[in-house]
């Protein structure tokens, strides 16, 4: 285990992506993640890569598309409204099967909203704002260490599935400091080695009889060809739904109530669970680590004889609750505890609201 160092979230995220193999970063400053482009502008050149400050997030995602199509290992980051601008490009990356690692250090909306932590980008990240049938595996870490471990593995995962991989970390994780163990840097792929690793990439056509030129595209004007292509993409997505899904569950057996929470909100729930325990209420937790694919299967382990309610706890008006309802499938009441706009509930507030919900169900 590497020695632990105290790092600010955003810098730890950037370092983890570099150690995971990313060598290219395209970005546009936006709070609360501007430390990332600053860090990358200092570090990437030293480590054999390139940093480019884009003219906009639209520029950044399209630079990503070009770089990834030419075999570059790209990491990009932004925050909510910037991620909105990137949605067009994400749809292209998925259709053209280009890998990239995308981090959303989210804030509050709608519109320009506010810069405090929020989770109201759940729909944006799990349903996508871009057009067409596509999916982007999305992780929602709850600590800087967990985010580091995910961002370290994400570039290789993206390469192996030829699809973007996203991480949703709210502004709380980006701005706070925690002790982190950084993993050993992975080997990087040099430009001349790209054809061996990524034969589909744009590297120049050598006209050898047994070689084909590379064409990276998403236009398919023939409906049958497009349907076939999208079905091929979804074979991959269906496989990921089985193989990639990840979550943490605590104390489902015998629980009076079960919280469902990700990221910052799950940390508050863990505190609330201890406080409820002291009052004789047993609370369990389902913490999705992947929000797409969502851990619907985890809900089959609920204690249906004992548990009275499942409570989706969110820093939004209730978005994940749609997935919670799918997971519960009508077997238990589903309730919501939430704040939004950058307001964060105290653990005491969660306790009080939980008791009120349980009281009303008696």
């Amino acid at each position, binding site marked *: 285990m590497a020695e632990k160092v105290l790092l600010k979230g955003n810098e730890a995220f950037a370092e983890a992506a570099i150690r995971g193999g990313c060598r290219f970063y395209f970005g546009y400053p936006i709070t609360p993640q501007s430390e990332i482009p600053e860090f990358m502008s200092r570090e990437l050149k030293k480590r054999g890569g390139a940093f480019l400050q884009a003219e906009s997030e639209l520029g950044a995602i399209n630079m990503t*598309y070009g770089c990834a199509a030419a075999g570059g290992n790209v990491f990009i980051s932004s925050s909510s409204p910037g991620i909105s601008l990137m949605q067009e490009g994400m749809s292209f990356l998925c259709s*053209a099967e280009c890998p990239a690692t995308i981090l959303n250090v989210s804030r509050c909306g709608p519109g320009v909203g506010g810069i405090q932590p929020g989770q109201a980008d759940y729909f944006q990240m799990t349903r996508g704002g871009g057009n067409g049938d596509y999916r982007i595996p999305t992780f929602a870490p709850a600590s800087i260490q967990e985010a580091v471990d995910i961002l370290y593995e994400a570039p290789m995962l993206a390469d192996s599935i030829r699809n973007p991989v996203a991480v949703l970390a709210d502004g709380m994780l980006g701005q706070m400091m925690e002790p982190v163990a950084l993993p050993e840097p992975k080997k990087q792929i040099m430009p001349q080695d790209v054809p061996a690793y990524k034969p589909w990439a*744009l590297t120049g056509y050598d006209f050898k009889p047994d070689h084909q030129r590379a064409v990276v*595209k998403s236009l398919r004007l023939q409906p049958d060809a497009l349907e076939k292509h999208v079905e091929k993409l979804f074979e991959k997505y269906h496989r990921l739904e089985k193989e990639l899904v990840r979550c943490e569950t605590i104390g489902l057996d015998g629980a009076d109530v079960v919280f469902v929470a990700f990221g910052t909100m799950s940390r508050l729930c863990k505190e609330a669970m201890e406080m409820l325990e002291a009052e004789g209420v047993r609370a369990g937790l389902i913490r999705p680590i992947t929000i797409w694919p969502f851990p619907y299967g985890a809900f089959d382990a609920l204690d249906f004889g004992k548990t009275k309610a499942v409570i989706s706890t969110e820093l939004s008006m209730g978005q994940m609750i749609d997935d919670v309802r799918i997971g519960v499938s009508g077997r238990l009441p589903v309730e919501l505890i939430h704040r939004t706009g950058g307001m964060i509930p105290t653990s005491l507030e969660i306790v009080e609201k939980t008791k009120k919900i349980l009281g009303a169900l008696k």
Partner: protein
Amino acid sequence: MKPVFTYTKGMLPVSTSYCPGCTHGIANRIIMETLEEMGKLGDAIGVAPIGCAVLCHQFMNVDMLEAAHGRAPAVAAGIRRAQPDRLVFTYQGDGDLASIGTNEIVHAAHRGEKFSTFFINNAIYGMTGGQMAPTTLIGQKTTTCPEGRTVEQAGRPIRMSEMLSTIDGAVYVERVALDSPAHVRAAKKAVRRAFEVQEKRLGFGIVEFLSICPTNWGLTPADSITWLRDNMIPYYPLGVYKCPEGLEND
């Protein structure tokens, strides 16, 4: 017997999907012939736009990518970072480059990106059926200015070469036309110069091709050529707007 003409292997032996009389085919071919003559087909990576030329990747026989509408310069900047030794170019129409993609082209030029842009200006949107472009001339009728473009409604047509030549990072800017054999030969020289500027890593280079769109102009190809000469060239003067020293007479 010695062949007097061979088709460039830079173009695939297929029929293009361009309309009869369209000059896209000429532009595609002179770019590919130039790359072949330079011995650089194997080094080239092209970026296709959205619009009529979206399918140029089916005709140009090099590694190609299809960009979103207007984003080709950002995509090319990304390709250049991953493959710094390749010859990268974008091929864009007037809707793509002069309307939805102005941000990307201006900033690519501003950064002095080391790639070449080939800009097809035919003063109209082709693929979507003949709507007004930023380059549509005053008085010119299109499906979205059916009584002719007016200054009050849409401003004057944008002159991209003039605008881009004010940017330091754009080191080579030339406007050519595809209306005659002499102009096509001059256009091919401009393509070569753009690639040479890129090879020498001097900065950003762009060639604007005044082109015709008989289908959406509602004219025969021959009348379209006349219309280009009578109307486009006076408003969009041909010539070298900017060129690095030493390359002027190549």
